[in-house]
């Protein structure tokens, strides 16, 4: 599977179509994000599987934004799974990346990972390696929906109270690119309190994820307290889908209804 990716990247680099390929590499016993610029480097490429499938995934599209900003004229390749591809599509609509300067090399996720992530589309639009898996079943949201209102309240408050305000969730999120973050604004969320004002902090972030979250799950993986953020954002995404028929990144070029000033009902 990895050979098809390596071959494709080799061709892209040799023909000069891309100046570099942002992927993952095995080094020092770890899996690290890496910009491949020469064919020889490809031997140590990794797809993000360390001990289990997909346990060493990184938000490569986020790092691509940093590189692309410094070199706006250059074209780069990037390794994408289903979620990364959705991230790219969403970033294009938010003008954070130029689609003409990005070549996505797609990797479809195996069924066990799709189930673990409860991913609705565990494959990118163009697949270079891997087979399409069935969408994972959504159990986590349903489990919370099944609880009574007061149980839901204590469930979430017990989780939110563990927060250490490390901002890991927004630091790792590919869709968090705001220069001035509301979560860091003293008027909205008081500085200097641990845990931060709950549920204000997490609800604010959840509302900002409306129309943006592509369900990559890196936030939950980056949370040192293990707060089930992904469940909350999945719920918020499903509300968007029901009410506005919109899911971030699933349809190429579809802009979030919250990103438009012209349409009244939020439909195209």
């Amino acid at each position, binding site marked *: 599977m990895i050979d098809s990716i390596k071959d494709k990247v080799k061709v892209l680099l040799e023909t000069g179509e891309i100046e570099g390929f942002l992927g993952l590499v095995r*080094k*020092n016993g*770890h899996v690290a994000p890496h*910009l491949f610029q020469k064919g020889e480097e490809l031997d140590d490429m990794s797809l993000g599987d360390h001990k289990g499938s997909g346990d060493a995934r990184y938000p490569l599209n986020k790092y691509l934004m940093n590189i692309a900003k410094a070199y706006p004229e250059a074209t780069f390749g990037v390794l994408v799974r289903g979620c990364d591809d959705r991230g790219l599509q969403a970033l294009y609509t938010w003008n954070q990346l130029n689609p003409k300067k990005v070549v996505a090399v797609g990797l479809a996720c195996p069924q066990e990972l799709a189930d673990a992530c409860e991913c609705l589309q565990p494959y990118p639009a163009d697949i270079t390696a891997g087979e399409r898996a069935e969408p994972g079943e959504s159990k986590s949201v349903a489990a919370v929906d099944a609880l009574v209102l007061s149980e839901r309240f204590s469930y979430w408050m017990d989780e939110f109270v563990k927060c250490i305000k490390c901002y890991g969730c927004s630091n790792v999120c590919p869709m968090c690119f705001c220069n001035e973050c509301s979560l860091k604004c003293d008027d909205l969320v008081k500085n200097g309190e641990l845990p931060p004002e709950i549920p204000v902090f997490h609800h604010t972030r959840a509302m900002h994820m409306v129309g943006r979250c592509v369900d990559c799950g890196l936030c939950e993986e*980056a949370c040192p307290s293990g707060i089930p953020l992904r469940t909350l954002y999945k719920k918020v995404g499903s509300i968007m889908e029901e009410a506005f028929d919109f899911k971030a990144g699933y349809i190429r070029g579809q802009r979030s209804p919250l990103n438009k000033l012209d349409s009244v009902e939020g439909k195209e």
Partner: protein
Amino acid sequence: MDYRTVLTTCTYCGCGCNFFLEVLDGKAIGTIPCKTSPVNEGKLCIKGWNVHEFIHSEKRLKKPLLRKNGKLEEASWEEALNFTASRLKEIKEKNGSDSIGFLTSAKVTNEENYVLQKFARAAVNTNNVDHCARL
């Protein structure tokens, strides 16, 4: 165009979380927690997430500063070292070793911290040594 991710360990607390410093053209621009490290498993505290900031910070001193007439002014290394050595000697003789305290930093290397605590304990003969991560 030089983009690289450099594996390193956080300088702050004793936990020793691993992360990659995101370095673009020689400048550290970000921090990526290491997902495959058994210590932190891809998670970091707020100090760890921002550890790359002090490397290129404008607030870092470039020259020694000496307080003259109530104001901090730039001085040469020779002047600064002579002043420090003679004043520490005076205070030690007049008020005793324990009247001197040493504050080091979690942002410097273990080797530099070793030198400072050795200086405090062996040269000045005091145990009053502490550093910023304990505050």
